[in-house]
């Protein structure tokens, strides 16, 4: 029995998450900031580092997401994300809480053959192909953001629950995979109580709250990827049978149930994009930057081939070789799938190490842009003229090296766990080799 600590035993924490208001206020504020970003993208200066669309989203939001929210709180971002909010309002026919009448959604069930995250994998790759443009042109960022919200509205009007989040959102798949390493989980306290409860209010909803927006039945939930921490089940459960646990890092990764091939591929897509981004955005190679930026040019096709080839073919292929060399005791494809989850800690560490450098160099734009979000010469906070200087100078390499080492440790340890779960002790060796290779590559890109 591994340690779990239910933070809901503190009444104030329970009140904070069960009440709709705190979550709602944060969400509405974020929706307002989202609208500001879209407006700034359309109307503000085309200079990215002076426009709120770029600095607010790709520097401030991204820093909080990858350095704090995902590693420590898992899917907590999904709990307050504004993107699906307008769609949910329409779908539920209510701005806050169930009102006893239906919304304006056809309420169809999401088609069975699309119940996987391959679309999210493809969407994430597609965004990555245009990332050099999206990350630097406010107008493009505005359209991408708006497009995601419109898509979410459309999906909410046809299908039930948060189908957009679970099956389409390109960020959602990424958060879902890495949330499995987070030291926080929402789980059922006593399975017997749920099994005996015929109404299953947490899935169907009642006057206290909506049925699980993620379409998850808490009793069957074994991993964090299918829980958006929306806390609806805390509101609906009539037996107070849910816990919000603090738990050891990486607790989901080595267990028997819930490993999926689509998600395994996500792990490689994220490794591949982390390596590519580190080379493009932090490397000294001007031609590579031009290639990533000149969308449609022959050199861009080269960049696209590099990114897609690395993420979808080379990295998984190399791993498959390792799996084969480790002579698995279970069907080959299954072995590949379950073992790929060992790469989650390292992948998260690689993204954090990359983002740390990226953010350290650009965080100095945040205060000036908050003071002048459109780049129109305003100075709301008196900080518009603050000079640009990178932060964390001397500490950056130490932090990055530490993060990567922790990630490598976590990955190999997880591989040992997976090996033990499946009676396949040799599994750890190919992972150790693979991890050494990835860590070395990332160290060289970031610090070399």
């Amino acid at each position, binding site marked *: 029995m*591994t340690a*779990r600590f239910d933070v809901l035993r503190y009444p104030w924490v329970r009140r904070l998450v069960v009440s709709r208001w705190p979550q709602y206020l944060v969400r509405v504020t974020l929706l307002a900031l989202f609208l500001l970003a879209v407006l700034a993208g359309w109307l503000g200066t085309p*200079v*990215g*580092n002076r426009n709120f669309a770029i600095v607010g989203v790709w520097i401030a939001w991204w820093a909080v997401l990858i350095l704090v929210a995902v590693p420590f709180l898992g899917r907590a971002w999904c709990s307050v994300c504004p993107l699906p909010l307008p769609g949910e309002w329409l779908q539920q026919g209510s701005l806050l809480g169930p009102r006893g009448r239906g919304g304006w959604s056809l309420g169809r069930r999401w088609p069975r053959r699309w119940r996987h995250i391959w679309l999210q994998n493809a969407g994430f790759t597609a965004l990555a192909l245009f990332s*050099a*443009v999206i990350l*630097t042109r406010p107008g493009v960022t505005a359209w991408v953001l708006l497009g995601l919200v419109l898509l979410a509205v459309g999906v909410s009007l046809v299908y039930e629950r948060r189908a957009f989040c679970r099956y389409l959102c390109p960020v959602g798949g990424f958060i879902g995979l890495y949330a499995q390493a987070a030291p926080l989980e929402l*789980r*059922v306290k006593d*399975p017997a109580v749920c099994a005996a409860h015929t109404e299953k209010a947490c899935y169907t909803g009642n006057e206290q709250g909506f049925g699980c927006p993620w379409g998850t039945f808490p009793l069957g*939930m*074994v*991993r964090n990827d299918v829980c958006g921490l929306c806390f609806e089940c805390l509101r609906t459960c009539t037996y107070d049978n849910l816990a919000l646990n603090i738990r*050891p890092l*990486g*607790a*989901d*990764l*080595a*267990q*028997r*149930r819930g490993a999926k091939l689509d998600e395994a591929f996500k792990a490689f897509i994220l490794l591949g994009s982390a390596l590519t981004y580190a080379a*493009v*955005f*932090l*490397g*000294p*190679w*001007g*031609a590579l*930057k031009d290639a990533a*930026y000149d969308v449609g040019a022959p050199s861009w096709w080269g960049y696209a081939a590099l990114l897609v080839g690395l993420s979808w073919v080379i990295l998984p292929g190399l791993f498959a070789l390792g799996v084969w060399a480790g002579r698995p005791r279970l069907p080959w494809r299954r072995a590949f799938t379950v073992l790929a989850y060992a790469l989650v800690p390292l992948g998260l560490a690689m993204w954090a190490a990359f983002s740390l450098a990226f953010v350290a*160099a*650009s965080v100095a734009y945040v205060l000036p842009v908050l003071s002048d979000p459109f780049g129109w010469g305003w100075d709301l906070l008196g900080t518009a003229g603050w000079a640009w*200087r*990178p932060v964390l*100078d*001397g500490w950056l*390499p*130490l932090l990055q*090296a530490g993060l*990567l*080492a922790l990630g*490598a*440790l976590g990955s*190999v*340890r*997880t591989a*040992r*766990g*997976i*090996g*033990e*779960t499946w009676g396949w002790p040799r599994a750890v060796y190919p992972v150790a080799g693979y991890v050494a290779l990835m*860590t*070395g590559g990332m*160290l060289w890109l970031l*610090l*070399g």
Partner: protein
Amino acid sequence: MRNFGEWRWGIGLVVAVLVLGLPVPQPQAEPQERVFRVTARQFAFEPAVLQVNPGDRVVIELRSSDVVHGLYVEGYDVEAVAEPGQPDRIVFVADRPGTYRLRCSVTCGDLHPFMVGKLRVGRNPWLWKGAALALWGVTLALFAARPRTREGGR
């Protein structure tokens, strides 16, 4: 058993700190003056990687071939700004080993935040320490840490 497990983490941490403190030998060469003529364009420096030895006096002559660019040396906090036809020059002593990014410091277009070069002073201690640390992490995970297996949920 549990106590022993925690002991192992303690030892692991101590070794990690020792690894970070290990000296990385640097090339022993007479300090000299190194002059680099760096051309900046949207969005690259040419040459993009400058290699010197610790203690060298570094002279960077920055010229621009299109718009106004800056060259800011991270870690040394020195900056040159060049307009087309108006070069600039910075001089400093590279007394700290390591790899430092050169960054454009004048907004010069879309990819400006990613206009990056590198100054390598001797051998980068962090690259070696980072590699040693990661290797130590892998070793710990292979032989010391108890793996985590658990049927999930509750």
